[in-house]
């Protein structure tokens, strides 16, 4: 059993070996992403790719809460729904442009995240999971029954397309694809910025040992709430994008299944990773499509893949300890005692020694 996991690590190492040049890889990846619609040249495939993007955003945002801060949320579809409905209602009823409604929707979701997070994040583990699950159901019930605004079970249709300077972004002219790429890059950049900072470290410390984190002076509830609010913001953004792409939303899009789907992506991709979210989303979103030939059996296979994954690699595909060295910020001198370090460095070290 262990062998398979080892094999996996070996493959991962080999993959690392192929790409030693960071700059080149980045350029290659960027070109590939930008040229993708012309390469695949199919609306059906493009729509799947966009959905992978949407779920990547959702997984990135849940990843901050679950993967980094270690708080399990079973209700992330609620924020997705709040974003979608907010943006849809504003643009359908008041004719406001998507580029204004989307940020508003994201902020609305973030505020809901704050309101939910403040009282509940003092809970942990199963209690928090159940509370978020309940929240998700409450939101769905509101959407179903507040017919005046949400149009109840009939949903909202003819949601206007996003238009930029009088130019409609659609699936056919690839506009929606590039918009998705923009949102995805935005989310990724913000998440990376948070994770690689003292806030990210504080969140991980909370995940590892909450009492010890408290004893280091970390206000644990504050950081859990921050994670929750940022997460809700981006889920709301993903929701707004989804609403204007599909142009029809109803409460059934945002059920418990969606929450579980997002959580599965985070776990499959690897908790506490950023790259894993993309990989997880790519696998889980495309899986039902790839397995279409199996017809009704495909969800059996889908479930089995998840079970096998948990058996043989519980830390997720890209999760677990990394073999690479810790990335120090540029300008940090490791060899503090060596003779060839400059005078300035030694001076700096003297002040440092005074501190400790």
């Amino acid at each position, binding site marked *: 059993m262990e062998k398979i996991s080892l094999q996996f690590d070996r493959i991962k190492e080999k993959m690392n070996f192929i790409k030693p040049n960071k700059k080149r890889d980045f350029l290659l990846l960027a070109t590939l992403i930008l040229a993708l619609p012309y390469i695949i040249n199919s609306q059906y495939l493009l729509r799947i790719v966009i959905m992978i993007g949407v779920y990547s955003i959702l997984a990135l945002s849940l990843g901050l809460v679950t993967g980094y801060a270690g708080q399990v949320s079973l209700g992330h579809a609620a924020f997705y729904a709040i974003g979608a409905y907010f943006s849809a209602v504003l643009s359908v009823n008041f004719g406001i442009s998507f580029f204004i409604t989307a940020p508003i929707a994201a902020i609305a979701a973030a505020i809901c995240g704050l309101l939910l997070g403040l009282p509940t994040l003092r809970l942990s583990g199963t209690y928090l999971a159940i509370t978020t699950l309940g929240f998700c159901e409450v939101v769905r019930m509101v959407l179903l029954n507040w017919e005046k605004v949400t149009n109840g079970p009939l949903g909202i249709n003819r949601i206007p397309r996003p238009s930029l300077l009088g130019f409609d972004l659609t699936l056919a002219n690839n506009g929606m694809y590039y918009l998705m790429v923009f949102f995805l890059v935005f989310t990724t950049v913000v998440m990376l910025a948070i994770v690689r900072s003292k806030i990210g470290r504080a969140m991980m410390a909370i995940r590892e040992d909450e009492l010890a984190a408290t004893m280091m002076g970390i206000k644990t509830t504050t950081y859990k709430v921050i994670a929750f609010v940022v997460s809700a913001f981006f889920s709301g953004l993903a929701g707004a994008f989804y609403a204007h792409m599909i142009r029809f939303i109803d409460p059934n899009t945002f059920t418990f299944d969606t929450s579980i789907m997002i959580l599965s992506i985070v776990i499959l991709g690897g908790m506490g990773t950023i790259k894993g979210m993309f990989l997880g989303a790519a696998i889980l979103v495309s899986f039902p499509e790839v397995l279409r030939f199996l017809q009704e059996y495909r969800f059996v296979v889908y479930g089995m893949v998840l079970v096998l994954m948990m058996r043989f690699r519980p830390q997720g595909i890209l999760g677990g300890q990394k073999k690479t060295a810790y990335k*120090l910020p540029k300008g940090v001198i490791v060899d503090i005692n060596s003779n060839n370090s400059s005078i300035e460095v030694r001076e700096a070290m003297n002040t440092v020694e005074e501190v400790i």
Partner: protein
Amino acid sequence: MTFLEVKDVSKHFGGLVAVDKVSLEINEGEIVSIIGPNGAGKTTLFNMLTGVYALTEGEIIFEGKPIHNLVPQEIVKAGLARTFQNIRLFADMRVIENVLVGMHTNTEYNFFDLLFRTKRFRNQEIEKHQVAIAILDSIGLKEKMHNYATNLPYGDQRRLEIARAISTNAKILLLDEPAAGMNPQESEDLLCFIKSLRDKGYTIILIEHDMNVVMNISDRIYVIDHGKKIAEGLPVDIASNKRVIEAYLGRSEQSCSQ
């Protein structure tokens, strides 16, 4: 003025009196040991000092200010940091990250700085990483800073916990059985290290069972049994104190006749 003054503190858990009117006086730059049999209430006392438990009665005064009503985070900021009896490192984080977490409260940049990677952010990150490396160097863990904490050998994990406590900018270090589970050589090294910390100006409060460590290192010793302070004084006095020997070994009539 006493540096840290603990006045008649008690902790009751329902009907159980875990700590009963214990008073301690700790001067700056001392190594003070708290010893006592298992279950005597030593760790409970630590938990009260660091704000984990609220006091049932009494007060704790640090540098002239009462700290017993503060939350743990504020107590850390005031200058008391601790280690744990059962190691509580951030297991799946790197060694250097563990130390950086300790510096969390004095890493000064806000959300805006980190989003836009401002100069303040970069300078702070470099400075803190540099300090972290220096701390790890002083404790002999610099070569292992890239490791994950959970992969370190036991002795190193204990030392990393101390490094993490130091990194909070603490003035007083509360070490809860730092030599537990160490072999004689390791505990000897630790002894030297704790002495060197005192020479750097730290005040150290130690809970320890290893009598060799306690007698060698302590400036003063407090003995607690069943939640009550039963003796205090210099190591030589404590070693010959009748009540202390009783608490540890039992009375003669109990142990022999049957």
